[in-house]
Protein backbone atom coordinates (compact mmCIF):
# COMPACT_ATOMS: atom_id res chain seq x y z
CA UNK A 1 0.00 0.00 0.00
CA UNK A 2 1.62 3.30 -1.09
CA UNK A 3 0.57 5.74 1.62
CA UNK A 4 -1.13 4.08 4.57
CA UNK A 5 -2.54 6.46 7.20
CA UNK A 6 -2.94 3.55 9.58
CA UNK A 7 -1.06 0.27 9.81
CA UNK A 8 -1.67 -2.47 12.36
CA UNK A 9 0.86 -5.23 12.86
CA UNK A 10 0.23 -8.36 14.90
CA UNK A 11 -2.22 -6.68 17.26
CA UNK A 12 -3.71 -8.96 19.92
CA UNK A 13 -6.12 -8.32 22.76
CA UNK A 14 -7.71 -10.71 25.22
CA UNK A 15 -10.27 -10.40 27.96
CA UNK A 16 -9.74 -12.84 30.85
CA UNK A 17 -7.98 -15.34 28.62
CA UNK A 18 -10.43 -15.09 25.73
CA UNK A 19 -8.75 -13.79 22.60
CA UNK A 20 -10.85 -10.92 21.28
CA UNK A 21 -8.28 -10.03 18.63
CA UNK A 22 -5.63 -12.45 17.47
CA UNK A 23 -2.44 -11.26 15.71
CA UNK A 24 -4.30 -8.91 13.42
CA UNK A 25 -2.47 -6.99 10.68
CA UNK A 26 -3.85 -4.71 8.00
CA UNK A 27 -3.38 -1.22 6.60
CA UNK A 28 -5.77 1.59 5.74
CA UNK A 29 -4.86 3.84 2.78
CA UNK A 30 -5.20 7.61 3.08
CA UNK A 31 -8.58 8.82 1.90
CA UNK A 32 -10.28 5.43 1.66
CA UNK A 33 -13.40 4.11 3.33
CA UNK A 34 -12.49 0.86 5.03
CA UNK A 35 -15.25 -1.38 6.37
CA UNK A 36 -14.76 -3.87 9.19
CA UNK A 37 -17.26 -6.70 8.97
CA UNK A 38 -17.76 -9.92 10.83
CA UNK A 39 -20.26 -11.68 13.07
CA UNK A 40 -21.12 -10.34 16.53
CA UNK A 41 -18.23 -10.86 18.91
CA UNK A 42 -15.67 -10.92 16.11
CA UNK A 43 -13.69 -8.15 17.79
CA UNK A 44 -14.68 -5.19 15.63
CA UNK A 45 -15.62 -2.73 18.37
CA UNK A 46 -12.64 -3.85 20.47
CA UNK A 47 -10.42 -3.01 17.52
CA UNK A 48 -11.82 0.53 17.26
CA UNK A 49 -11.30 0.90 21.00
CA UNK A 50 -7.63 0.00 20.58
CA UNK A 51 -7.23 2.47 17.74
CA UNK A 52 -8.30 5.42 19.85
CA UNK A 53 -6.85 4.28 23.13
CA UNK A 54 -9.90 3.17 25.10
CA UNK A 55 -8.35 -0.33 25.26
CA UNK A 56 -4.70 -1.23 25.32
CA UNK A 57 -3.49 -3.98 23.01
CA UNK A 58 -1.68 -6.87 24.71
CA UNK A 59 0.88 -7.00 21.92
CA UNK A 60 1.54 -5.63 18.46
CA UNK A 61 1.81 -2.06 17.24
CA UNK A 62 -0.43 0.47 15.60
CA UNK A 63 1.14 3.10 13.36
CA UNK A 64 -0.87 6.26 12.69
CA UNK A 65 0.63 8.72 10.19
CA UNK A 66 3.85 6.70 10.26
CA UNK A 67 4.25 7.01 14.02
CA UNK A 68 3.89 3.76 15.95
CA UNK A 69 2.64 3.37 19.43
CA UNK A 70 1.87 0.46 21.70
CA UNK A 71 -0.48 2.54 23.77
CA UNK A 72 -2.24 5.81 23.09
CA UNK A 73 -4.66 7.56 25.44
CA UNK A 74 -8.09 8.62 24.13
CA UNK A 75 -7.28 12.31 24.58
CA UNK A 76 -3.94 12.00 22.75
CA UNK A 77 -5.65 10.07 19.94
CA UNK A 78 -8.24 12.82 19.57
CA UNK A 79 -5.57 15.52 19.59
CA UNK A 80 -3.63 13.70 16.85
CA UNK A 81 -6.77 13.72 14.73
CA UNK A 82 -8.50 10.38 15.32
CA UNK A 83 -12.25 11.02 15.57
CA UNK A 84 -14.82 8.54 16.75
CA UNK A 85 -18.55 7.88 16.94
CA UNK A 86 -20.16 5.31 19.20
CA UNK A 87 -22.51 2.39 18.81
CA UNK A 88 -24.79 3.46 21.66
CA UNK A 89 -25.69 6.91 22.92
CA UNK A 90 -22.49 8.51 24.09
CA UNK A 91 -23.76 12.01 23.47
CA UNK A 92 -24.01 14.68 26.15
CA UNK A 93 -27.70 14.11 26.74
CA UNK A 94 -28.60 17.26 28.66
CA UNK A 95 -26.93 19.58 26.16
CA UNK A 96 -28.36 20.97 22.95
CA UNK A 97 -27.33 19.67 19.53
CA UNK A 98 -25.28 22.83 19.00
CA UNK A 99 -23.46 22.46 22.33
CA UNK A 100 -22.66 18.81 21.58
CA UNK A 101 -21.15 19.82 18.24
CA UNK A 102 -19.27 22.76 19.79
CA UNK A 103 -17.79 20.38 22.37
CA UNK A 104 -16.28 18.47 19.45
CA UNK A 105 -14.16 21.53 18.63
CA UNK A 106 -12.30 21.49 21.95
CA UNK A 107 -9.05 20.23 20.45
CA UNK A 108 -8.86 23.43 18.41
CA UNK A 109 -9.47 25.71 21.41
CA UNK A 110 -6.67 28.16 22.18
CA UNK A 111 -8.39 30.18 24.89
CA UNK A 112 -8.00 30.05 28.67
CA UNK A 113 -10.35 29.96 31.63
CA UNK A 114 -9.82 33.68 32.31
CA UNK A 115 -10.62 34.59 28.71
CA UNK A 116 -13.86 32.61 28.98
CA UNK A 117 -14.83 34.08 32.34
CA UNK A 118 -14.32 37.71 31.39
CA UNK A 119 -14.90 37.51 27.64
CA UNK A 120 -11.53 39.08 26.92
CA UNK A 121 -8.71 38.76 24.33
CA UNK A 122 -9.28 35.89 21.90
CA UNK A 123 -12.57 34.70 23.46
CA UNK A 124 -14.88 36.66 21.20
CA UNK A 125 -13.08 35.73 17.97
CA UNK A 126 -12.91 32.05 18.91
CA UNK A 127 -16.57 31.92 19.97
CA UNK A 128 -17.55 33.35 16.59
CA UNK A 129 -15.21 31.05 14.70
CA UNK A 130 -16.44 27.95 16.57
CA UNK A 131 -20.05 28.90 16.04
CA UNK A 132 -19.44 29.28 12.30
CA UNK A 133 -17.68 25.91 12.09
CA UNK A 134 -20.43 24.21 14.07
CA UNK A 135 -23.14 25.76 11.91
CA UNK A 136 -21.32 24.62 8.79
CA UNK A 137 -21.24 21.03 10.04
CA UNK A 138 -24.88 21.20 11.18
CA UNK A 139 -25.82 22.43 7.72
CA UNK A 140 -23.75 19.72 6.05
CA UNK A 141 -25.58 17.01 8.03
CA UNK A 142 -28.97 18.67 7.64
CA UNK A 143 -29.25 19.29 11.39
CA UNK A 144 -29.56 23.09 11.39
CA UNK A 145 -33.23 23.10 12.36
CA UNK A 146 -32.46 20.96 15.42
CA UNK A 147 -29.60 23.09 16.76
CA UNK A 148 -31.38 24.06 19.98
CA UNK A 149 -33.00 20.69 20.72
CA UNK A 150 -31.84 18.84 23.82
CA UNK A 151 -30.12 15.74 22.49
CA UNK A 152 -31.76 13.25 24.86
CA UNK A 153 -35.18 14.19 23.45
CA UNK A 154 -34.24 13.44 19.82
CA UNK A 155 -35.15 10.22 17.99
CA UNK A 156 -32.41 7.62 17.65
CA UNK A 157 -31.63 8.22 13.98
CA UNK A 158 -31.06 11.91 14.60
CA UNK A 159 -28.85 11.19 17.61
CA UNK A 160 -26.64 9.06 15.37
CA UNK A 161 -26.27 12.02 13.06
CA UNK A 162 -25.45 14.38 15.96
CA UNK A 163 -22.75 11.90 17.01
CA UNK A 164 -21.31 12.07 13.48
CA UNK A 165 -21.52 15.88 13.53
CA UNK A 166 -19.67 16.04 16.86
CA UNK A 167 -16.87 13.89 15.42
CA UNK A 168 -16.74 15.62 12.01
CA UNK A 169 -16.65 19.21 13.28
CA UNK A 170 -13.13 18.72 14.68
CA UNK A 171 -11.95 17.73 11.17
CA UNK A 172 -10.22 14.49 12.15
CA UNK A 173 -7.74 12.89 9.75
CA UNK A 174 -9.09 9.46 10.56
CA UNK A 175 -12.69 8.87 11.57
CA UNK A 176 -13.80 5.66 13.30
CA UNK A 177 -17.53 4.94 12.98
CA UNK A 178 -19.00 2.21 15.17
CA UNK A 179 -22.18 0.98 13.47
CA UNK A 180 -23.30 4.40 12.25
CA UNK A 181 -26.41 2.89 10.68
CA UNK A 182 -27.50 0.38 13.31
CA UNK A 183 -31.23 0.42 13.88
CA UNK A 184 -31.99 2.69 10.93
CA UNK A 185 -34.54 2.12 8.19
CA UNK A 186 -33.57 2.01 4.52
CA UNK A 187 -34.08 5.73 3.86
CA UNK A 188 -32.12 6.71 6.93
CA UNK A 189 -29.32 4.34 5.93
CA UNK A 190 -29.18 5.85 2.45
CA UNK A 191 -28.97 9.34 3.91
CA UNK A 192 -26.26 8.31 6.36
CA UNK A 193 -24.24 6.55 3.62
CA UNK A 194 -24.45 9.70 1.59
CA UNK A 195 -23.17 11.83 4.48
CA UNK A 196 -20.26 9.44 5.05
CA UNK A 197 -19.34 9.39 1.36
CA UNK A 198 -19.48 13.19 1.25
CA UNK A 199 -17.33 13.51 4.38
CA UNK A 200 -14.64 11.52 2.60
CA UNK A 201 -15.05 13.29 -0.72
CA UNK A 202 -15.42 16.91 0.43
CA UNK A 203 -13.27 16.87 3.56
CA UNK A 204 -10.72 14.23 2.60
CA UNK A 205 -11.25 12.27 5.80
CA UNK A 206 -10.16 8.63 5.94
CA UNK A 207 -12.91 6.47 7.40
CA UNK A 208 -12.91 3.11 9.16
CA UNK A 209 -16.41 1.86 9.85
CA UNK A 210 -18.17 -1.13 11.32
CA UNK A 211 -21.36 -2.10 9.56
CA UNK A 212 -23.57 -5.18 9.43
CA UNK A 213 -25.66 -4.33 6.36
CA UNK A 214 -23.60 -5.98 3.64
CA UNK A 215 -25.37 -4.07 0.86
CA UNK A 216 -24.36 -0.76 2.42
CA UNK A 217 -20.80 -1.99 2.92
CA UNK A 218 -20.41 -3.08 -0.70
CA UNK A 219 -21.76 0.23 -2.02
CA UNK A 220 -19.89 2.54 0.32
CA UNK A 221 -16.45 1.11 0.97
CA UNK A 222 -13.24 0.83 -1.05
CA UNK A 223 -11.72 -1.77 1.21
CA UNK A 224 -13.24 -4.48 3.37
CA UNK A 225 -11.58 -6.32 6.25
CA UNK A 226 -13.44 -9.41 7.49
CA UNK A 227 -12.97 -10.58 11.06
CA UNK A 228 -14.06 -13.82 12.66
CA UNK A 229 -13.20 -14.78 16.24
CA UNK A 230 -10.57 -12.06 16.32
CA UNK A 231 -8.75 -13.32 13.25
CA UNK A 232 -8.65 -11.74 9.84
CA UNK A 233 -10.36 -13.97 7.27
CA UNK A 234 -10.58 -11.53 4.38
CA UNK A 235 -8.95 -8.28 3.26
CA UNK A 236 -9.36 -6.53 -0.08
CA UNK A 237 -11.71 -4.64 -2.39
CA UNK A 238 -15.44 -5.36 -1.82
CA UNK A 239 -15.86 -7.53 -4.92
CA UNK A 240 -12.87 -9.74 -4.14
CA UNK A 241 -14.01 -10.17 -0.54
CA UNK A 242 -17.56 -10.98 -1.58
CA UNK A 243 -16.33 -13.94 -3.65
CA UNK A 244 -13.72 -15.24 -1.23
CA UNK A 245 -14.76 -18.73 -0.07
CA UNK A 246 -13.24 -18.27 3.38
CA UNK A 247 -15.26 -15.12 3.91
CA UNK A 248 -18.46 -16.75 2.69
CA UNK A 249 -17.92 -19.59 5.10
CA UNK A 250 -17.22 -17.33 8.04
CA UNK A 251 -19.72 -14.61 7.53
CA UNK A 252 -21.68 -14.07 4.35
CA UNK A 253 -23.01 -17.60 4.24
CA UNK A 254 -24.56 -17.45 7.66
CA UNK A 255 -27.90 -15.93 8.43
CA UNK A 256 -28.26 -12.92 10.70
Amino acid at each position, binding site marked *: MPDPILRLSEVSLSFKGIKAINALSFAVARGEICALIGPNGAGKSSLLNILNGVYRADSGTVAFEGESFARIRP*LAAAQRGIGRTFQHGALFGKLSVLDNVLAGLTRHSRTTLAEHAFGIFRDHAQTRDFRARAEETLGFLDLSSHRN*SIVATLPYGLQKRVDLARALVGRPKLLLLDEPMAGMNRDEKRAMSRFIAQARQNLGITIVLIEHDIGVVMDLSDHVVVLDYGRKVGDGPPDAVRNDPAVIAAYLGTRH
Partner: protein
Amino acid sequence: MPPIASAASAAFDTGPRRVRLPVLPGRAILPSVLAVAAFGAATAVASDYWLDAILIPFLIMALAGLGLNLTMGYAGQASLGTGAFMATGAYATYNLLLRLPEWPLPVSLVLGGLITGAVGLVVGLPSLRIKGFYLVAPTLAAQFLIEWALNQYPWFSNHTSSSAISAPRLAWLGHDLSSPQGRYAVTLTSVVLVTLTAWKLVRSQTGREWMAVRDMDTAAAVIGIPVGAAKLKAFFAGAAVCGIAGALWAFAYLGTVDARSFDLDRSFQVMFVIIIGGMGSLAGSFIGAAFIVFLPIALSQIASNLFGAAIDGGQLQNLQHVLFGGLIIALLIKEPDGLAALIARFGRRLARR
Protein backbone atom coordinates in the same frame (compact mmCIF):
# COMPACT_ATOMS: atom_id res chain seq x y z
CA MET B 1 -28.70 19.76 0.65
CA PRO B 2 -29.13 16.60 -1.39
CA PRO B 3 -32.76 15.56 -1.74
CA ILE B 4 -32.16 12.20 -0.05
CA ALA B 5 -30.91 13.93 3.05
CA SER B 6 -33.89 16.25 3.25
CA ALA B 7 -36.29 13.38 2.86
CA ALA B 8 -34.49 11.48 5.57
CA SER B 9 -34.59 14.41 7.93
CA ALA B 10 -38.31 14.77 7.33
CA ALA B 11 -38.66 11.11 8.27
CA PHE B 12 -36.64 11.68 11.43
CA ASP B 13 -38.80 14.55 12.53
CA THR B 14 -41.30 12.90 14.82
CA GLY B 15 -43.26 15.89 15.96
CA PRO B 16 -43.22 18.01 19.08
CA ARG B 17 -40.59 16.16 21.10
CA ARG B 18 -38.14 18.98 20.77
CA VAL B 19 -37.50 20.93 23.94
CA ARG B 20 -36.09 24.43 24.03
CA LEU B 21 -33.21 25.26 26.33
CA PRO B 22 -34.67 26.24 29.69
CA VAL B 23 -32.79 29.54 29.85
CA LEU B 24 -32.24 31.55 26.71
CA PRO B 25 -29.71 34.37 27.04
CA GLY B 26 -31.89 37.01 25.41
CA ARG B 27 -34.82 36.30 27.67
CA ALA B 28 -32.70 36.04 30.80
CA ILE B 29 -31.30 39.55 30.58
CA LEU B 30 -34.47 41.50 31.34
CA PRO B 31 -35.45 39.55 34.48
CA SER B 32 -31.86 39.78 35.74
CA VAL B 33 -31.78 43.55 35.30
CA LEU B 34 -35.15 43.82 37.04
CA ALA B 35 -33.98 41.64 39.91
CA VAL B 36 -30.84 43.70 40.42
CA ALA B 37 -32.86 46.92 40.30
CA ALA B 38 -35.29 45.50 42.86
CA PHE B 39 -32.46 44.54 45.19
CA GLY B 40 -30.87 47.92 44.67
CA ALA B 41 -34.12 49.62 45.60
CA ALA B 42 -34.31 47.41 48.69
CA THR B 43 -31.27 49.22 50.07
CA ALA B 44 -33.26 52.40 50.31
CA VAL B 45 -36.51 50.88 51.52
CA ALA B 46 -35.78 47.81 53.62
CA SER B 47 -35.32 48.03 57.35
CA ASP B 48 -31.99 47.18 58.95
CA TYR B 49 -33.48 43.92 60.19
CA TRP B 50 -34.42 42.86 56.67
CA LEU B 51 -31.00 43.72 55.28
CA ASP B 52 -29.07 42.15 58.15
CA ALA B 53 -31.06 39.04 58.92
CA ILE B 54 -32.56 38.14 55.56
CA LEU B 55 -31.23 39.77 52.40
CA ILE B 56 -27.50 39.63 53.17
CA PRO B 57 -27.45 35.94 54.24
CA PHE B 58 -29.71 35.09 51.30
CA LEU B 59 -27.34 36.65 48.77
CA ILE B 60 -24.26 35.08 50.34
CA MET B 61 -25.82 31.62 50.53
CA ALA B 62 -26.82 32.01 46.88
CA LEU B 63 -23.21 32.88 46.02
CA ALA B 64 -21.86 29.85 47.90
CA GLY B 65 -24.46 27.70 46.13
CA LEU B 66 -23.35 29.15 42.83
CA GLY B 67 -19.76 28.18 43.60
CA LEU B 68 -20.70 24.60 44.45
CA ASN B 69 -22.95 24.54 41.40
CA LEU B 70 -19.96 25.18 39.12
CA THR B 71 -18.07 22.23 40.60
CA MET B 72 -20.93 19.84 41.26
CA GLY B 73 -23.87 20.98 39.14
CA TYR B 74 -22.00 21.81 35.94
CA ALA B 75 -18.89 19.61 36.10
CA GLY B 76 -20.47 16.76 38.09
CA GLN B 77 -17.75 16.65 40.78
CA ALA B 78 -19.45 16.10 44.15
CA SER B 79 -17.90 18.13 46.96
CA LEU B 80 -18.46 18.44 50.69
CA GLY B 81 -15.60 20.93 51.05
CA THR B 82 -17.72 24.04 50.59
CA GLY B 83 -17.48 25.06 54.26
CA ALA B 84 -13.70 24.72 54.16
CA PHE B 85 -13.49 26.80 51.00
CA MET B 86 -15.64 29.50 52.60
CA ALA B 87 -13.37 29.44 55.67
CA THR B 88 -10.28 29.68 53.47
CA GLY B 89 -11.76 32.70 51.69
CA ALA B 90 -12.65 34.36 54.97
CA TYR B 91 -9.23 33.81 56.55
CA ALA B 92 -7.35 34.72 53.36
CA THR B 93 -9.25 37.99 53.00
CA TYR B 94 -8.84 38.68 56.72
CA ASN B 95 -5.08 38.27 56.49
CA LEU B 96 -4.88 40.36 53.35
CA LEU B 97 -6.84 43.19 54.97
CA LEU B 98 -4.76 42.88 58.12
CA ARG B 99 -1.29 42.60 56.61
CA LEU B 100 -1.77 44.72 53.51
CA PRO B 101 -4.16 47.39 54.74
CA GLU B 102 -3.21 49.80 51.95
CA TRP B 103 -4.72 47.46 49.34
CA PRO B 104 -8.30 48.35 48.43
CA LEU B 105 -11.14 46.11 49.66
CA PRO B 106 -12.17 44.74 46.22
CA VAL B 107 -8.59 43.62 45.51
CA SER B 108 -8.41 41.79 48.85
CA LEU B 109 -11.76 40.13 48.19
CA VAL B 110 -10.73 38.95 44.71
CA LEU B 111 -7.32 37.79 45.91
CA GLY B 112 -8.97 35.92 48.77
CA GLY B 113 -11.10 34.18 46.16
CA LEU B 114 -8.08 33.30 44.01
CA ILE B 115 -6.18 31.89 47.00
CA THR B 116 -9.23 29.75 47.79
CA GLY B 117 -9.33 28.68 44.14
CA ALA B 118 -5.75 27.44 44.43
CA VAL B 119 -6.68 25.49 47.58
CA GLY B 120 -9.72 24.09 45.75
CA LEU B 121 -7.48 22.95 42.91
CA VAL B 122 -5.39 20.91 45.35
CA VAL B 123 -8.52 19.49 47.00
CA GLY B 124 -9.73 18.57 43.50
CA LEU B 125 -6.63 16.53 42.64
CA PRO B 126 -8.16 13.20 43.80
CA SER B 127 -10.93 13.75 41.22
CA LEU B 128 -8.38 12.71 38.60
CA ARG B 129 -8.57 9.15 39.95
CA ILE B 130 -11.81 8.97 41.90
CA LYS B 131 -15.18 9.20 40.22
CA GLY B 132 -18.70 10.16 41.20
CA PHE B 133 -20.01 9.60 44.69
CA TYR B 134 -16.66 8.36 46.08
CA LEU B 135 -15.18 11.79 45.47
CA VAL B 136 -17.17 12.97 48.49
CA ALA B 137 -14.64 11.22 50.77
CA PRO B 138 -11.51 13.26 49.89
CA THR B 139 -13.46 16.53 49.89
CA LEU B 140 -14.81 15.58 53.32
CA ALA B 141 -11.23 15.01 54.49
CA ALA B 142 -10.31 18.45 53.16
CA GLN B 143 -13.23 19.95 55.08
CA PHE B 144 -11.91 18.57 58.39
CA LEU B 145 -8.26 19.21 57.61
CA ILE B 146 -8.70 22.87 56.65
CA GLU B 147 -10.98 23.58 59.62
CA TRP B 148 -8.40 21.98 61.91
CA ALA B 149 -5.46 23.84 60.33
CA LEU B 150 -7.15 27.22 60.70
CA ASN B 151 -7.71 26.57 64.41
CA GLN B 152 -4.36 24.91 65.00
CA TYR B 153 -2.01 27.54 63.61
CA PRO B 154 -2.48 30.90 65.34
CA TRP B 155 -0.80 32.76 62.45
CA PHE B 156 -4.05 32.48 60.48
CA SER B 157 -5.98 34.32 63.18
CA ASN B 158 -3.16 36.78 63.94
CA HIS B 159 -2.48 35.10 67.32
CA THR B 160 -5.84 36.13 68.71
CA SER B 161 -6.67 34.19 71.85
CA SER B 162 -10.38 33.94 71.09
CA SER B 163 -11.32 31.62 68.23
CA ALA B 164 -13.70 34.24 66.85
CA ILE B 165 -11.78 37.22 65.56
CA SER B 166 -13.64 40.44 65.01
CA ALA B 167 -13.35 41.44 61.39
CA PRO B 168 -11.71 44.71 60.36
CA ARG B 169 -14.14 47.45 59.47
CA LEU B 170 -15.28 47.47 55.86
CA ALA B 171 -14.19 50.62 54.09
CA TRP B 172 -13.32 51.64 50.56
CA LEU B 173 -12.24 55.00 49.13
CA GLY B 174 -12.79 56.62 52.48
CA HIS B 175 -16.40 55.42 52.75
CA ASP B 176 -17.35 53.49 55.84
CA LEU B 177 -19.29 50.43 54.69
CA SER B 178 -20.01 48.91 58.08
CA SER B 179 -23.63 50.07 58.26
CA PRO B 180 -26.26 47.52 57.17
CA GLN B 181 -26.72 49.51 53.94
CA GLY B 182 -22.98 49.56 53.28
CA ARG B 183 -22.56 45.82 53.92
CA TYR B 184 -25.58 45.10 51.77
CA ALA B 185 -24.12 47.21 48.95
CA VAL B 186 -20.79 45.33 49.16
CA THR B 187 -22.62 41.99 49.11
CA LEU B 188 -24.96 42.87 46.28
CA THR B 189 -22.18 44.26 44.09
CA SER B 190 -19.98 41.21 44.65
CA VAL B 191 -22.83 38.79 43.99
CA VAL B 192 -23.85 40.54 40.77
CA LEU B 193 -20.30 40.69 39.41
CA VAL B 194 -19.50 37.06 40.29
CA THR B 195 -22.82 35.86 38.88
CA LEU B 196 -22.17 37.65 35.58
CA THR B 197 -18.71 36.08 35.37
CA ALA B 198 -20.10 32.63 36.16
CA TRP B 199 -22.83 33.12 33.58
CA LYS B 200 -20.22 33.93 30.94
CA LEU B 201 -18.16 30.94 32.04
CA VAL B 202 -20.87 28.29 31.90
CA ARG B 203 -21.88 29.36 28.41
CA SER B 204 -18.27 29.29 27.16
CA GLN B 205 -16.17 26.40 25.88
CA THR B 206 -15.10 25.78 29.50
CA GLY B 207 -18.74 25.38 30.57
CA ARG B 208 -19.38 22.98 27.70
CA GLU B 209 -16.33 20.93 28.71
CA TRP B 210 -17.65 20.74 32.28
CA MET B 211 -21.08 19.56 31.20
CA ALA B 212 -19.55 17.09 28.74
CA VAL B 213 -17.45 15.59 31.54
CA ARG B 214 -20.53 15.46 33.76
CA ASP B 215 -22.76 13.80 31.17
CA MET B 216 -20.29 11.25 29.71
CA ASP B 217 -16.64 11.46 30.68
CA THR B 218 -15.36 8.60 28.49
CA ALA B 219 -16.90 10.11 25.38
CA ALA B 220 -15.56 13.52 26.43
CA ALA B 221 -11.97 12.26 26.36
CA VAL B 222 -12.51 10.47 23.05
CA ILE B 223 -13.70 13.65 21.33
CA GLY B 224 -10.69 15.58 22.59
CA ILE B 225 -11.75 17.17 25.89
CA PRO B 226 -8.93 17.18 28.49
CA VAL B 227 -11.07 15.64 31.23
CA GLY B 228 -8.59 16.04 34.08
CA ALA B 229 -7.91 19.69 33.32
CA ALA B 230 -11.64 20.38 33.04
CA LYS B 231 -12.26 18.86 36.50
CA LEU B 232 -9.45 20.88 38.09
CA LYS B 233 -10.74 24.08 36.46
CA ALA B 234 -14.16 23.33 37.92
CA PHE B 235 -12.68 22.89 41.41
CA PHE B 236 -10.66 26.10 41.01
CA ALA B 237 -13.58 28.22 39.82
CA GLY B 238 -16.08 26.73 42.28
CA ALA B 239 -13.76 27.14 45.27
CA ALA B 240 -12.87 30.71 44.27
CA VAL B 241 -16.56 31.68 44.27
CA CYS B 242 -17.12 29.90 47.60
CA GLY B 243 -14.08 31.75 48.97
CA ILE B 244 -15.59 35.12 48.10
CA ALA B 245 -18.86 33.96 49.65
CA GLY B 246 -17.00 32.97 52.83
CA ALA B 247 -15.25 36.33 53.05
CA LEU B 248 -18.59 38.11 52.66
CA TRP B 249 -20.16 35.83 55.28
CA ALA B 250 -17.46 36.83 57.76
CA PHE B 251 -17.15 40.51 56.89
CA ALA B 252 -20.57 41.58 55.65
CA TYR B 253 -22.81 39.25 57.66
CA LEU B 254 -21.31 37.99 60.93
CA GLY B 255 -18.71 40.67 61.55
CA THR B 256 -16.40 37.97 62.93
CA VAL B 257 -14.03 35.48 61.33
CA ASP B 258 -14.71 32.11 62.92
CA ALA B 259 -13.90 28.70 61.49
CA ARG B 260 -16.82 27.21 63.43
CA SER B 261 -19.30 29.00 61.19
CA PHE B 262 -17.83 27.10 58.22
CA ASP B 263 -18.13 23.55 59.51
CA LEU B 264 -19.49 20.45 57.81
CA ASP B 265 -23.06 21.61 58.49
CA ARG B 266 -22.38 24.59 56.25
CA SER B 267 -21.13 22.28 53.48
CA PHE B 268 -24.33 20.28 53.71
CA GLN B 269 -26.45 23.40 53.83
CA VAL B 270 -24.91 24.70 50.60
CA MET B 271 -25.37 21.30 48.99
CA PHE B 272 -29.04 21.43 49.99
CA VAL B 273 -29.27 24.87 48.40
CA ILE B 274 -28.32 23.48 45.01
CA ILE B 275 -30.23 20.21 45.33
CA ILE B 276 -33.38 22.14 46.18
CA GLY B 277 -32.73 25.00 43.75
CA GLY B 278 -31.34 23.03 40.85
CA MET B 279 -28.00 21.52 39.96
CA GLY B 280 -26.55 22.89 36.76
CA SER B 281 -28.61 26.07 36.96
CA LEU B 282 -27.30 29.44 38.09
CA ALA B 283 -30.82 30.64 38.86
CA GLY B 284 -31.27 27.48 40.92
CA SER B 285 -28.61 28.65 43.38
CA PHE B 286 -30.68 31.76 44.11
CA ILE B 287 -33.96 29.87 44.29
CA GLY B 288 -32.48 27.30 46.66
CA ALA B 289 -30.88 29.96 48.86
CA ALA B 290 -34.15 31.88 49.02
CA PHE B 291 -35.88 28.71 50.10
CA ILE B 292 -33.37 27.82 52.78
CA VAL B 293 -33.27 31.37 54.21
CA PHE B 294 -36.97 32.20 54.02
CA LEU B 295 -38.52 28.89 55.03
CA PRO B 296 -37.34 28.97 58.68
CA ILE B 297 -38.57 32.56 59.03
CA ALA B 298 -41.92 31.78 57.44
CA LEU B 299 -42.21 28.66 59.57
CA SER B 300 -41.64 30.47 62.85
CA GLN B 301 -44.12 33.16 61.80
CA ILE B 302 -46.77 30.58 61.00
CA ALA B 303 -46.09 28.62 64.18
CA SER B 304 -46.31 31.64 66.45
CA ASN B 305 -49.51 32.82 64.76
CA LEU B 306 -51.21 29.43 64.85
CA PHE B 307 -50.04 27.88 68.10
CA GLY B 308 -48.74 30.83 70.06
CA ALA B 309 -46.40 29.55 72.75
CA ALA B 310 -47.41 25.89 72.36
CA ILE B 311 -44.37 25.16 70.14
CA ASP B 312 -40.95 26.07 71.45
CA GLY B 313 -37.88 26.96 69.43
CA GLY B 314 -36.32 23.52 69.68
CA GLN B 315 -39.38 21.76 68.34
CA LEU B 316 -39.59 24.30 65.54
CA GLN B 317 -36.02 23.59 64.55
CA ASN B 318 -36.70 19.85 64.48
CA LEU B 319 -39.76 20.44 62.37
CA GLN B 320 -37.62 22.47 60.01
CA HIS B 321 -35.10 19.63 59.64
CA VAL B 322 -37.89 17.16 58.95
CA LEU B 323 -39.33 19.46 56.30
CA PHE B 324 -35.97 19.99 54.58
CA GLY B 325 -35.18 16.28 54.67
CA GLY B 326 -38.54 15.33 53.24
CA LEU B 327 -38.32 17.97 50.56
CA ILE B 328 -34.84 16.91 49.47
CA ILE B 329 -35.89 13.27 49.17
CA ALA B 330 -39.02 14.25 47.25
CA LEU B 331 -37.03 16.49 44.89
CA LEU B 332 -34.31 13.90 44.27
CA ILE B 333 -36.99 11.39 43.27
CA LYS B 334 -39.43 13.62 41.41
CA GLU B 335 -37.33 16.48 40.09
CA PRO B 336 -33.57 15.92 40.22
CA ASP B 337 -33.08 19.24 38.46
CA GLY B 338 -34.62 21.10 41.38
CA LEU B 339 -37.07 23.94 41.81
CA ALA B 340 -35.47 25.86 38.91
CA ALA B 341 -36.57 23.12 36.48
CA LEU B 342 -39.99 22.96 38.14
CA ILE B 343 -40.45 26.71 37.74
CA ALA B 344 -39.16 26.65 34.14
CA ARG B 345 -41.65 23.89 33.30
CA PHE B 346 -44.47 25.83 34.95
CA GLY B 347 -43.45 28.93 32.99
CA ARG B 348 -43.54 27.03 29.70
CA ARG B 349 -47.00 25.70 30.51
CA LEU B 350 -48.24 29.21 31.21
CA ALA B 351 -46.67 30.48 27.99
CA ARG B 352 -48.42 27.76 25.98
CA ARG B 353 -51.86 28.87 27.21
